[in-house]
């Protein structure tokens, strides 16, 4: 894709950038929540072990 002299390049780039930002934030939040929950549960289970 050549962006030079393309009158619509800004629209295409804006659409891809916005989508990347939204999906990137979703993935980051999901991975962070997963790690936090796993760590929390492992800590609780360790405490319960005799």
């Amino acid at each position, binding site marked *: *894709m050549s962006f030079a002299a393309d009158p619509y390049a800004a629209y295409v780039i804006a659409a*891809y950038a*916005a*989508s990347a930002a939204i999906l990137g934030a979703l993935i980051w939040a999901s991975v962070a929540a997963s790690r936090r929950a796993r760590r929390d549960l492992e800590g609780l289970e360790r405490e319960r072990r005799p």
Partner: protein
Amino acid sequence: MSLWRYANPAEFMRVTRPVVVPLWIGAGVLLAAGLGWALFFTPPDYQQGSTVRIIFLHVPAAMLAINTYFIMAVASGIGLIRRHHVSFLIAKAAAPIGAAFTLVALITGAVWGQPMWGTWWVWDARLTAVLIMFFFYLGYMALWAAIDEPEKAADLSAVLCLVGVVFAGLSRWAVLFFATLHQGSSLSIEAGQRIDDAFRTPLYLCIVAFYVLFLALLLMRARTEIRLRRARALRFAAVPA
């Protein structure tokens, strides 16, 4: 062997554990291939120019926005009828994913609409139904967050989800019932081929990539919800009576 054994949280965790990482890898490879092809190897459309490349984000995101809501509705219905916690938790896990895909569909649609329709937004049936569905996603998540008691939150959120399924249906089929500015389906089995192969093949690839990403996210988030529920149960068990 019954399908319902997967409603057992321990069984669900055991079965999904080996699947999550391959799904993430598959999503990454397919997204790189699909979007790389879409951006760098598709020609401009003879009418729409390079804006046609927005289709590779807009269509998969819109499909997932609507279908995720249907998945939530089915999971909520099963949860209400059969009282399976995993069903409720799958619906809860799917909500932020569906909301994100709906937001992507709305934004890419607006950015595509401006140069092609001459406006960012119109209050036509399909666009309005998708916007209302987005608010149902937000309302569903807010309701879960607002109620401390998980059983009550699950029940009330499930009812709200089932009410909102009307707008998921309208989002999907509004173009058939109303005169809308939004075009009809680009991919239709009944109507035959409506899109050139130069765009159709990478579009299929992007749709598959988005679905694999959805599955990876859904399983990861559902497993997180099950862990949070287990942690809450352990905390309660540790509190002396």
